[in-house]
């Protein structure tokens, strides 16, 4: 599932408060962040990611080209902090996907994020690192990778050894499979430690299991080499 980040313009958070901001004590509990997409037209929104900073609830409203004067709610009171007074979830990384939204996100002109933090304990709250993604182009067909991940079964070359020379096509395909296996092992790097037998050169570790599992092949390769010379 590939995705492409959409460049966006995020306007600064606006606090909503009842009464005069200067004289009233206490901090605002609601912030609104407006997001527009100036370069792209109406986009198809796939995913929204951000880092939370002490926001308890998030609502999202979108404006779509079908009804440009109406704001449609696509996410209502999504809980980011299970208990607004505690630190749980306060600084987590969150992703919101298309399938979690209440309305379809086919064409989005503008987004409005409504942040709520009802607890008076926190001095500030916001969302950081807001990023928006849309569907990327499809990855190229994976016929090549299928060949790598499902190798043809190894065939017994016992009959070949009894003949004078092995079939060159067969041998060349087996050499191809051997090469493919080394590529697979090289790609299959694991994070677990091998311990005191740490080998730094990946090629060296690739060839030793091959020698064990393809004994017949190495002898037939040597025969082929002699024939080619």
């Amino acid at each position: 599932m590939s995705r492409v980040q959409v460049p966006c313009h995020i306007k600064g958070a606006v606090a909503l408060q009842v009464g005069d901001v200067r004289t009233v004590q206490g901090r605002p509990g609601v912030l609104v962040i407006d997001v527009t997409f100036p370069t792209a037209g109406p986009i198809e929104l796939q995913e929204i990611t951000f880092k939370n900073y002490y926001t308890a609830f998030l609502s999202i409203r979108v404006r779509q080209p079908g009804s440009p004067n109406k704001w449609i709610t696509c996410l209502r009171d999504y809980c980011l902090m299970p208990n607004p007074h505690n630190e749980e979830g306060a600084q987590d990384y969150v992703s919101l996907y298309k399938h979690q939204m209440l309305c379809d996100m086919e064409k989005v002109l503008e987004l409005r994020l409504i942040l709520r933090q009802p607890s008076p304990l926190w001095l500030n709250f916001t969302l950081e690192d807001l990023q928006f993604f849309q569907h990327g182009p499809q990855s190229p067909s994976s016929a090549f990778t299928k060949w790598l991940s499902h190798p043809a079964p190894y065939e017994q070359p016992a009959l070949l050894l009894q003949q004078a020379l092995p079939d060159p096509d067969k041998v060349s395909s087996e050499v191809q499979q051997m090469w493919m296996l080394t590529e697979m092992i090289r790609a299959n790097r694991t994070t677990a430690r091998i311990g005191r037998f740490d080998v730094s050169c990946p090629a060296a570790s690739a060839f030793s299991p091959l020698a064990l599992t393809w004994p017949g092949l190495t002898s037939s390769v040597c025969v082929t080499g002699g024939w080619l010379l």
Partner: protein
Amino acid sequence: MLQEEEDLSLTIAHIVQKLKGSRLYSQLERQAWVSLQKPEIKLESLKEDIKEFFRITGWEKKLQNAVYSELTVFPLPRHPAAPPEHLKEPLVYMRKAQGSWEKRILKSLNSMCTELSIPLARKRPVVEQKELLNKWNEMGTDEPDLSLFRPVYAPKDFLEVLINLRNPNYENGDHLNLRTHLGLIQVPLKVKYISELKDYFIELSLNTGQLGIDDATQVPPELFENEHVRLGQKVLAEQDSAAAQQYVRQGSPTALRAELWALILNVSNQPEDLLYYEQLKSNVIQHDLLVDSLIYKDVKLTASNDDYYFVFEDYLYQVLLCFSRDTSVLGHFAYNSASPPKSYIRGVIPFHGFSMYVAPLCFLYHEPSKLYQIFREMYVRFFFRLHSISSHHSGIVSLCFLFETLLQTHLPQLFYHLREIGAQPLRISFKWMVRAFSGYLATDQLLLLWDRILGYNSLEILAVLAAAVFAFRAVNLMEVTSLAAAEAVLADLSTLKVMPLLQIFLFATVT
């Protein structure tokens, strides 16, 4: 639904990648090759036949245990955008606090080094190596001059750091108001209420049998104990980690405890592990680290003076000296909020009382390499949380906060009284929790407590026990008038029985 499936496949991919490089993977592969020669394995149904073969020969169980161990120990990667520091500790201010604490420890260590002009590490001359090898099993008889060494830090220094922990986004205020916490910890972490604790520790409830209560001499063993022991033997025969973890919540019989703990921690006696221990031992013999002197000093100050543990002094040296050189311990720093120092000492810096984590295990395991592995597993699962600053629910900060919350909620008069006389309860109970009560309780009671730590995979029971001890001695504590007197009331815990205290506090206290 889609998200859960994606999360599940991510989890599976993550665990498969982790296990692919392990010894178990190569053993399974070898077994699969061997099984091909058996007549039951047919080419048409190869996959199913091999799976059946694994199931019959017990290899599937081993794989299950390995997967369970991975799931329990390592937290899964939470979000692709989250950096690795976020996995260690999500809250930024705690990471900063831990970083500055580590800098302080390292500075203190370096200044001690320069003061005493001792190198951080040096290679031992051959004569000294031979001598140490001969004396390996009786290092306790060595009496090096350690008078100039002092422990890098003690639990009370760490407590001061935790008391000063502040969230910059939290409204603390200079004056006392409704938002200031009455206890010492001033960060609003999520801790469980007593109703949540009752659900969490349901196996400790009044109508479930417990070892530590229902195996007393007055209780006939047919009621609970015999059946429990039989069940334990069955669990060991099955070799199932998850079942053992569930079983041990009700306590583990003394005869089966060593094997049960090894099963839960997924520690088996493989020749490779013995080889690894021998390699660490040779590292100890070849190089002398400054940390070794600190370990010597700590053992001499704590375990050697303890009535129960002084006999194990030699074992403690053998385990701890190897532990300070074990680089596989560095793997746990991925989910520990602490980081290893970027100097010669690539590991854990011991503090005063560190050796008490190992001492109770000496009662269970007599072979140094097995003892070492068990201690290492226990450390990277539990004990590291007791001396690093983190918001994890089993971290020491949460435990302290849980203790204070429980005490305030259920014994408000006692809490207020102690606060008024200047004896904040956390100042007394902190040292118990940091050491997981080792050295304060009688050994059999301590092992029963550690059974539950393994069973629930969490250290919260330490905070509950600390509150329960205060509740038990509440009457005496209400009459004291100073911190010293309060400490005297709570000085001796060796006569306490852990399980009745926990049961009464959780399930039988009128709230």
